[in-house]
C-alpha cells in the first residue's frame, strides 16, 4: 500500500470531522472519495497530506507511520491539486515560477528549466516554452488547472490528492482534465485520490469509490459495484438525485447532513434513513475494512 489510514480520527474541539476511517490506497489506483459538504472528505484529504494532525489513529506512507516532525520529504511524495486554480496560483508569478517553486523549496538537483518544461508538457501545455512567461490571468480556466497539475507533477510525486479538480471548470473543459488524470495514472502509475461530490466524475475515472457520511466511510468498493448496485441507503439516495432523465424514483432526503459535533448514536445515518429500523438507533456499526472488496456499513446489509 502506498498510503493507508487506520482508525483515523480528526477532531476540532467537539466536532469530529473524521471519525474512524480505515482506507488503503494502492499504487496506480484512482479512488474517488464522495460525499456532501460537511461530511469530512476535505478534512480527510488534508490529513492525508499532513496538513492536519490526527487526533487518534495513524496515516502511513509505504507502510511507515508519518513522522510529524519531518514531513518535508513526505510532502514531495504526496501533492495537492485544488478546486479553484485562480485561487491556487499567485497572480504575480509567471507560469514558470509557479511550477518551479516546488523545485526550489525542495532543492531538487538538475536543470530547472528542463524539469519545468517536462512537467508542463506532461500536463498538456505544449510547447511548454510558450507558457513560461505567461501570467495566470492570461490563461483560460482549463490551462490554469493544467499549470496547477504541472506544479504538482514537477516533484515526481507518488500520490496526487485532487479536491474537486474540475468543479470550477467549464463543462466542455472538464473532460480534458479528467482524461489528463487518467493518462498520468497510466504513464507514471500515479496514485490519485479525487475528493468530489460528483458521482458522474467518479464513474468517469475512478477504480474504487468510498462514500463518506458524517466522518465515516459508509460504503466502499469497486466503482462499478458501488455506483451500479449501491447497497447503503445513503449511497442509493445520492445516486437517485444525480440529474438524469432516465431515472427511476428519486429518493430526496429531507434536511441536510446533521451537525458533526453531535453525531447520532448507533448508525449515524439513521435519523435521515428511509428504511430505518428500531435497532439502528442503538446498534454500533464497525469501521469498514479497507481492502478492495465491496463493504457496506448498514444493519440491513448482512
Amino acid at each position, binding site marked *: 500500500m502506498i498510503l493507508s489510514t487506520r482508525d483515523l480520527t480528526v477532531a476540532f474541539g467537539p466536532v469530529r470531522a473524521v471519525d474512524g476511517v480505515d482506507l488503503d490506497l494502492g499504487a496506480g489506483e484512482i479512488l474517488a472519495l464522495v460525499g456532501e459538504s460537511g461530511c469530512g472528505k476535505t478534512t480527510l484529504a488534508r490529513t492525508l497530506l499532513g496538513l492536519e494532525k490526527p487526533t487518534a489513529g495513524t496515516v502511513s506512507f509505504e507502510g511507515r507511520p508519518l513522522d510529524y516532525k519531518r514531513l518535508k520529504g513526505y510532502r514531495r511524495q504526496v501533492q495537492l491539486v485544488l478546486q479553484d486554480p485562480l485561487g491556487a496560483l499567485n497572480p504575480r508569478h509567471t507560469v514558470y515560477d509557479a511550477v518551479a517553486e516546488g523545485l526550489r523549496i525542495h532543492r531538487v538537483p538538475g536543470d530547472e528549466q528542463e524539469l519545468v518544461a517536462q512537467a508542463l508538457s506532461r500536463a498538456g501545455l505544449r510547447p511548454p516554452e510558450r507558457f513560461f512567461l505567461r501570467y495566470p490571468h492570461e490563461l483560460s480556466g482549463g*490551462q490554469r488547472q493544467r499549470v496547477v497539475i504541472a506544479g504538482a507533477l514537477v516533484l515526481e510525486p507518488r500520490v496526487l490528492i485532487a479536491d474537486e479538480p474540475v468543479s470550477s471548470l467549464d*463543462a466542455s473543459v472538464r473532460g480534458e482534465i479528467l482524461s489528463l488524470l487518467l493518462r498520468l495514472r497510466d504513464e507514471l502509475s500515479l496514485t490519485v485520490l479525487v475528493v468530489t461530490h460528483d458521482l458522474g466524475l467518479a464513474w468517469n475515472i475512478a477504480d474504487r469509490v468510498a462514500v463518506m457520511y458524517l466522518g465515516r466511510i459508509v460504503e466502499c468498493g469497486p466503482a462499478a459495484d458501488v455506483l451500479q448496485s449501491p447497497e447503503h441507503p445513503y449511497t442509493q439516495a445520492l445516486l437517485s438525485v444525480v*440529474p438524469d432523465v432516465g431515472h427511476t424514483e428519486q429518493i430526496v432526503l429531507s434536511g*441536510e447532513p446533521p451537525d458533526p459535533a453531535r453525531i447520532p448514536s448507533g448508525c449515524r445515518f439513521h435519523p435521515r434513513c428511509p428504511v430505518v429500523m428500531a435497532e439502528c438507533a442503538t446498534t454500533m456499526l464497525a469501521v469498514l475494512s479497507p481492502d478492495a472488496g465491496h463493504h457496506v456499513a448498514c444493519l440491513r446489509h448482512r
Partner: protein
Amino acid sequence: MSLLEFRDVTVDYASAEGPIPAVRGVTLLVERGEVLGIAGESGCGKSTLAATVLRLLPENAAIGGEMLLDDVDVLTMKWGKLRSVRWAEAAIVFQGALHALNPVQSIGDQIAEPIRLHKTAKDVDARVAQLLMQVGLPASRAKSYPHQLSGGQRQRVMIAMALACSPDLIVADEPTTALDVMVQAQVLDLLTGLVRDLGMGMVLISHDLGVLGTTCDRIAVMYAGQVVETGAALEIFDHPKHPYTKALAGAFPRVGDPAARYAPVGLPGDPPYPGDIPAGCAFHPRCPIAVDECTSASVALVDGVRCIRVGA
C-alpha cells in the same frame, strides 16, 4: 400571446477595444406554466441574457432587438413602469445566495421589502410567513439572519423573495450551482412544483445539461452569444444534434453508461473570448466534424440546429 418573447436580442458591452458582443441575436419564447432551460458555459451570454429580461445590465451595455413581457417591450419601457414590473411581473433568483442576501437584515425583512414597495399585500407578516412555508421553511425562520441558514435554506429564501409579489415569470440563474446534489434536488423540486402549481413561467439557466434535462420542458443551448440548438428537453438530452450539445451532454455522464467509463468526454480548446469570436461558425475551431466551409459561411438556425453538417 406568449409570457416572454426574445426577438433577435443583442447585447454589446462597450470597452476600450470597441463593442464586445455578448449576446448575438437570440429569439426565444416562454409560455405560462412552462420551464425554458438555457444551457451554456461561462462567457456564452446566458447570464447577460437573463439580466436583460429586467434590464439589470450595467450602463456600458447596449441592448438591441425586442424583449416582450406580456406583449410589452421591456427594452423601451420608461423607468417608472420598469420599476413596477420588476418583482411584480418578473423576478430573478441569482446564484450565490450568500452574496445576494444582506447579512445584517433578517430574512423576514428582506422578503418583506418588495411586498412593501409594491404594496401587494396588506398583512405583510402573514404574507412573509406564507411564502416561507411555500418554500419549505418554518415561518419562525423570518427572524433569522442569512449566516444562521445553510446554503440550501438561503437559496429557498431567495426563491421566497422572488415569489413575494406573485410574478408571472421567474428567471433562475444557476440557482443550484453552489449546492450539494441532495440539496440541489430539493431546490429543483421546489421550483418546478411552484411553476406547476402557480402557473408561472420560468427561465432556468445552468451549465449542467442534466439539471435542465430533468426540470425543463424546452432547452436552448447557447455558444458564443447565439442559440446553437433548441428543442424539447428530452430530445436535446437524449439525442443532441449539434456537436457542441453532444460534448456538453457527454461532460456530465450518466452513471452506468459503459461508454463513459474511463472515457471522459471533453473538447479541445476553450470557449472563445466574446471580443474575438471566430469567423463563420463560432464553434468551428473546437468542432470535431468541421469542414472548410465552416470557417467562412455564417450559419443560420435551421430546424432548431445551427450547423451546416447536421441534416446535410
